[in-house]
């Protein structure tokens, strides 16, 4: 594809993933040498309806957003989900553990019924439209993002790891968080982030979503070895894995 036109759209999210794109600093100019941005609300005033690649950040939480994302899908040749909110629903899905009236009341109290505060259970972008590529993570790893962009421009299928974070964690020479009696989600979480959290002494909380075949059952079985309970594990799995297939097993 010769210099595709790219548009970036955001839905319910913290915009941290777009920030990661800005954080490429000078490298952003290199990215602009292989793609032409035609719409990017956070960084520029131009807007366009013609684009080859649509990059979508954020979760879908309102019926009107569902319509908007469908329209974007119709126009785009390639659709990329950017970041956990878009790929899995991210933390936004924690909301789905409650009833919608309940969350509205918790946050807006007596005003909860006002129409503009309407909300629906959070969906990932893939739950609404077909997603061609996923850039996982909360926030994304911007190196992985540019790798995917270059792959697309070259016509190459990007290779996204389907092995756990432990692989990258070990390559970075870390001591396992379990040795300190902490619950780390590294063993069931898809790698590709280069394990920044365990490398900084914090457990992996699973922001990239699960590997294809996560052994959540094994994780349950070892909890007592580390003085933890299955409930502790579930609670952590919920953060980014709410209503993902394996959390409730």
């Amino acid at each position, binding site marked *: 594809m010769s210099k595709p036109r790219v548009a970036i759209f955001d839905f319910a999210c913290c915009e941290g993933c777009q920030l990661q794109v800005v954080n490429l600093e000078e490298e952003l100019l*290199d*990215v602009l*040498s*292989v793609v032409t941005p035609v719409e990017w609300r956070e960084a520029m005033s131009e807007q366009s309806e013609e684009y080859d690649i649509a990059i979508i950040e954020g979760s879908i939480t309102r019926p009107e957003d569902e319509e908007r994302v469908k329209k974007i899908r119709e126009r785009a040749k390639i659709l990329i989900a950017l970041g956990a909110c878009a790929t899995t629903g991210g933390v936004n899905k924690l909301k789905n553990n409650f009833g919608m009236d309940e969350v509205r009341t918790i946050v807006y109290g007596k005003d909860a019924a006002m129409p503009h505060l309407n909300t629906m259970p959070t969906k990932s972008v893939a739950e609404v439209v077909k997603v061609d590529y996923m850039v996982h993570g909360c926030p994304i790893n911007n190196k992985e993002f540019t*790798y995917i962009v*270059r792959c697309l*421009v*070259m016509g190459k299928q990007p*290779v996204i790891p*389907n*092995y*756990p974070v*432990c*692989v990258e964690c*070990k*390559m*970075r*020479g*870390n*001591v*396992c968080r*379990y*040795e300190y009696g902490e619950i*780390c989600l*590294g*063993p*069931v979480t898809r790698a590709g982030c280069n394990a920044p959290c365990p490398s900084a002494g914090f457990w992996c909380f699973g922001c990239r979503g699960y*590997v*294809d*075949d*996560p*052994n959540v*059952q*094994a*994780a349950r*079985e*070892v909890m007592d*070895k580390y003085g933890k309970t299955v409930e502790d594990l579930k609670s952590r799995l919920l953060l980014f894995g709410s209503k993902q297939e394996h959390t409730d097993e």
Partner: protein
Amino acid sequence: MSIKKLEPAALNRWVDGILQKQKVYGIQARGDKFVFDQLDRADQLRLDYDVSVTAPKAFLQPPCETLLRFGEKGFESVVESEPFVLFGVHPYDMAAILQMDVVFAEGNPDIHYLERRKNATIVVCDVQNASENVFAGCMGTAVLESGGDVLVTRVGSAYVVESRSARGEALMETIATAPVAGARDLGERKAVWEKNRKLLRRHELKVKPEQLPALLEKSYDHPVWEEKAKRCFSCGSCNLVCPTCYCFNVRDTVSYNLKDGERERVWDGCMLAEFALVAGGHNFRKKKAERYRHRYYRKGKYLHDMHKQIACVGCGRCITACVTKIANPVEIYNRLAEGQK
């Protein structure tokens, strides 16, 4: 070859002298664990360490290294290496390096490894404190009769320092005038060795290592594979921490002109789900149990069939690294042996 006796202060002076001239990666503390990292001062050295988090193989086959560069002019080899000293390698890790030497030199020699190896001066140091899971004593690697360039052994409050190669001899040049270790020191060193052979057995292997290939030969359908693998995350931690594991993946990266780039090799592991997957979707080791078994067979039989050495040196890192606690080779081999009786 010289054998010297150095008091701790003299050892430090010697190391500081080396630091003036060469890059040294020495064992040092990181929090409550130990790692090999670039040494700034001799007093950072912790020769009393139990085990390093990452095996020293990382300095010979790094987790990620560039093999080739490509661009307008086609491909060119990249062999990036400069002389360095690896200070404080335990005997079992040295034994593992000796195995890697064979693997990368035989048949089709691998210049990327061999160049680094050629540039490495390795100071082996006898174990002072046994780690939580070490069983090198069972594997015959608690003490190493030869291998490495210098051997440092703590005897009493001093160190016996012995050169084991010309390169080691050169490293010890600056301590040429230091006192020679006497018969008593050597006797004490021997006692340390005897002690280590007995002590580095936190797990007791009930068969002799030489018997493992024959034992495995008969155990292909043993229920233990399925039973344990149920709990496997396919996370590869056991592979990646292992000093004798060297499997790798190769990948290309390109710059923004989409022409120039590099071909890199990165650590890989046979426990990972897609290790034997081919395009089209056929996975030759699709089941966890198949991969789990493969690892033990590779360590205990396949590599032995090729090089006559068991590819486990008993460092115990995999036992610690495995979150679900199923990666203990001793437990598995003992279990297989049990059935034989």
